[in-house]
């Protein structure tokens, strides 16, 4: 039992990382229906910016967070303006391929500038442990967990309750009609990308702090898992991203802890497919059959 609880904590903390990245995926998807395949790489970019800020500029960590989130937000916006905006009217697949291209570009761009070697994120926050009822808890685990829940709540509030959120949702449904209401569609999309990218940067730094390893391909696997998490919970739905993230984290950890690690990822995908078969648009997705 003790061990099970410990595994649950392990699962929730890794799930928190997936959730953080998945939030950005889902935001962007929710507004422009684009699978931003490069999101994992934006996450990686954010980790690098944060690391450089701390390592080369000796910034305190909170400042590094702010700088990395700002720089990465700008980076995300530039990507959107240059690569995605021209494709707003083309097919979804064309946009997906562009996103894949952007992903390659970021990976290899960072690789060229920073090299392929693995960096270790400076351990500026001491990794404190405390034991509660015999369970080992880690300060950073708690931070990641709390941040992902807090951000989820904030984002959900923004999207569902504010004027900006209404504008986002209208743009998601019908860009022209939104423009006719006075919404500056480009700005709304820009803000969405900025928020999504800033979130990715925050996730990047937290992962850097917690898992230490920073390298050009660090975005791929968490990005993919986060994408799966977003779909799992119902892509486009903010609480879904979080539920999906935690679910994937838990499944992975339980399979690794009690079954065979070898089949960890396979089990995640099998469960994903099973969920989709029962709920074709994810756990929280609405099963709308197209009205004819």
């Amino acid at each position: 039992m003790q061990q099970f609880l410990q595994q649950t904590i392990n699962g929730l903390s890794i799930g928190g990382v997936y959730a953080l990245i998945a939030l950005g995926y889902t935001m962007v998807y929710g507004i422009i229906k684009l699978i931003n395949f490069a999101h994992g790489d934006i996450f990686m970019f954010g980790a690098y910016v944060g690391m450089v800020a701390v390592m080369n500029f000796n910034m305190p960590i909170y400042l590094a967070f702010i700088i990395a989130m700002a720089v990465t937000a700008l980076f995300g916006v530039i990507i959107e303006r240059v690569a995605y905006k021209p494709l707003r009217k083309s097919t979804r697949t064309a946009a997906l391929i562009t996103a894949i291209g952007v992903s390659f570009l970021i990976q290899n761009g960072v690789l060229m500038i920073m090299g392929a070697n693995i960096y270790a994120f400076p351990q500026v926050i001491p990794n404190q442990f405390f034991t509660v009822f015999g369970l080992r808890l880690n300060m950073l685990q708690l931070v990641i967990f709390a941040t992902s829940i807090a951000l989820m709540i904030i984002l959900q509030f923004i999207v569902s309750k504010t004027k900006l959120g209404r504008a986002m949702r209208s743009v998601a449904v019908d860009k022209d009609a939104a423009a006719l209401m006075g919404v500056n569609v480009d700005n709304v999309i820009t803000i969405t990308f900025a928020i999504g990218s800033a979130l990715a940067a925050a996730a990047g730094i937290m992962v850097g702090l917690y898992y230490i390893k920073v390298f050009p391909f660090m975005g791929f696997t968490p990005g993919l898992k986060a994408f799966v998490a977003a779909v799992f919970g119902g892509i486009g739905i903010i609480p879904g991203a979080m539920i999906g993230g935690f679910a994937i984290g838990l499944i992975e950890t339980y399979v690794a802890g009690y079954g065979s690690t070898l089949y960890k990822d396979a089990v995640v995908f099998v469960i994903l497919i099973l969920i989709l078969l029962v709920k074709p648009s994810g756990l929280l997705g609405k099963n709308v059959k197209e009205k004819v």
Partner: protein
Amino acid sequence: MLKVENLNVHYGVIHALKDVSIEVEQGKIVSLIGSNGAGKTTLLRTISGLIKPTSGSITFEGNDIITVAPQQLPMRGLVHVPEGRRIFSGLTVMENLQMGAYLRKDKAGIKEDLDKVFKRFEILYSRRNQDASTLSGGEQQMLAISRALMAKPRLLLMDEPSMGLAPLLVKEIFNIIREINSQGTTVLLVEQNAMQALKIADWAYVLETGSIVLGGTGEELLSSPEIQKVYLGG
């Protein structure tokens, strides 16, 4: 109030509007009729900035608006009810109405106009927290019009508001247009239902394959034998 001169619009090789000139006077209802694909929707979309014309000019209250982005027009009082309702699904009825008032800052005024809308369309009030996409066609049309009214339009562009509606509702929609107009909003109305459109129009134009072929008061056109034959099924 609105003046369109020698407007030309192309979709690739298709020449959708050819030297179109129309004028809408303050306080009037101007109807635009024409068969399918004549270019009526294209004209409205060009006026509200969604399509860029190849040449020509559009002035609204004396100002050139061709270069103005579509999202800035509601502020100036020019509001467009698009073809096919285009209500925001996934948003509630209330939120749709709030979107109509997107650019307004006067909270009290918005509240007042909201009350007005709900008084005019009681059914919308009873559905205010419902996802707008689950409304029936007629209800959606009412919502689309109300949403536009929330922007306090001085000039309302309406694209086929009666399409797909039951006869009873068609009558009601035209009553509403008349009422809006009597309360001071100028209306440019595009309609397939030529009979009704001409009946309420102060002035009307006929658009055929991208060109204005006829203009006159509603009554004049109603009694024109050509119009009778083609557009009124007479």
